[in-house]
């Protein structure tokens, strides 16, 4: 018997690249470049954390929803977001990073989540606006990720996308209901849209010329579209929805460009975006403190469940007693 030589890095890289070029998926136990693994862990963790932290702004309104119907819907929506976080943590764990590690990094402020969840939900109309604009922007981002090159991430995104459509529709329906109400309710909707429009556009990330990792991520098939492409797509999708709803989007430069067959629009306040990313948004500290408290307050439950599991698996004596 001859011992076959260890395939060298060059060959492994070639195999990896040809899988990507064939548009085939990379699976967890395949060899992959360290940079690919790191980029994925960073992106999936950030995505998972966004789903988990994203429960807070809306969760705020569950006990104050105006009817049992709205309360049940909001509860289901927030529960879905918890599920999305878990699908994504599960995908991230296939890359060899444990959920505990990720949670610890989140509450230590060492990993990021979407900037949008650092804005407060000041009125009940925000529940509708978040469903419409924030989940709408998330859908725009997530649909192309169903074809991302890493198998478990793509499969998690397929599950997530199936559930997001309910989120967006319930939000839009909520706003439609308010727009059919009193002048005061219509004003609440407009005020809410005014606050959330620009932060929603920032959800797609910095402009392409300021997004140094995009090219590599696209070469690896992790990302399928650039930030600016997706932002444009979102604006074009949203304008007719705003019109049907009867609200104004707070951008004086927003206008249809016949030549480009797309809307021109203003520039988000990128300085504000950088501040929020750095931790200086209106709610950053509160969001992390709440997550940390929930994690620490739940420690005794996790420990009790482990102790119970250990007890019930003890051989003989426990089973004889019963």
């Amino acid at each position, binding site marked *: 018997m001859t011992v076959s030589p260890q395939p060298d890095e060059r060959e492994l890289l070639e195999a990896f690249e040809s899988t990507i070029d064939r548009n085939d998926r990379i*699976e967890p*136990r*395949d*060899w992959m470049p360290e940079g690919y693994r790191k980029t994925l862990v960073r992106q999936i963790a950030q995505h998972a954390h966004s789903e988990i932290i994203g429960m807070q702004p809306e969760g705020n309104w569950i006990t104050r929803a105006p009817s049992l119907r709205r309360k049940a819907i909001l509860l*289901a929506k927030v*529960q*879905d977001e918890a*599920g999305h976080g*878990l*699908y994504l943590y*599960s*995908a991230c*764990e*296939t890359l060899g990073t*444990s*959920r*505990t590690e990720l949670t610890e990094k989140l509450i230590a402020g060492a990993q990021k989540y979407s900037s949008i969840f650092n804005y407060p939900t000041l009125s009940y109309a925000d529940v509708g606006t978040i469903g419409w604009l924030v989940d709408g922007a998330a859908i725009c981002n997530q649909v192309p990720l169903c074809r991302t090159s890493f198998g*478990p991430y793509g*499969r*998690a995104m397929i*599950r997530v996308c199936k*559930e997001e459509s309910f989120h967006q529709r319930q939000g839009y329906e909520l706003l439609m209901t308010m727009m059919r109400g009193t002048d005061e309710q219509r004003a609440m909707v407009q005020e809410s849209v005014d606050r959330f429009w620009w932060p929603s556009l920032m959800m797609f990330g910095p402009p392409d010329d300021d997004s140094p990792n995009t090219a590599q991520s696209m070469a690896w098939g992790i990302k399928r579209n650039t930030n600016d492409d997706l932002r444009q797509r979102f604006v074009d999708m949203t304008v007719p929805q705003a019109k049907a709803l009867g609200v104004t989007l707070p951008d004086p430069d927003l206008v249809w460009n016949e030549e480009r067959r797309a809307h021109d629009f203003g520039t988000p306040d990128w300085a504000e975006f950088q501040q929020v990313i750095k931790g200086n948004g209106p709610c950053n500290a509160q969001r992390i403190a709440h997550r940390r408290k929930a994690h620490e307050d739940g420690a005794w439950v*996790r*420990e009790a*469940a*482990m*102790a*119970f*599991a*250990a007890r*019930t*698996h003890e051989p003989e004596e426990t089973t004889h007693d019963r």
Partner: protein
Amino acid sequence: MTDEQPSVRAEWPLYEVFVRGKRGLNHVHVGSLHAADDQMAVRHARDVYTRRNEGVSIWVVRADLITASSPDEKDPLFAPSGDKVYRHPTFYAIPADVPHM
């Protein structure tokens, strides 16, 4: 701690989850989750993976109990089926006018 008892502070073990979408279909792998024990894994699987009637039956198995083929052996392990084209119906030429074949 060197004994077999898992520490109460340790992370709950990882389970892989399989769901039968409806009667007549196989259980299919849908993802994983953490749970303290088997029963909790089934309950969590219901909450995480079947919130919209996606399943009529759930299997869970601890991830560390799964034996898998190694990706490094990919070629040798699957080689035996690679050169047996005669296992496929298209290997046999049958005149087009022979019915029901």
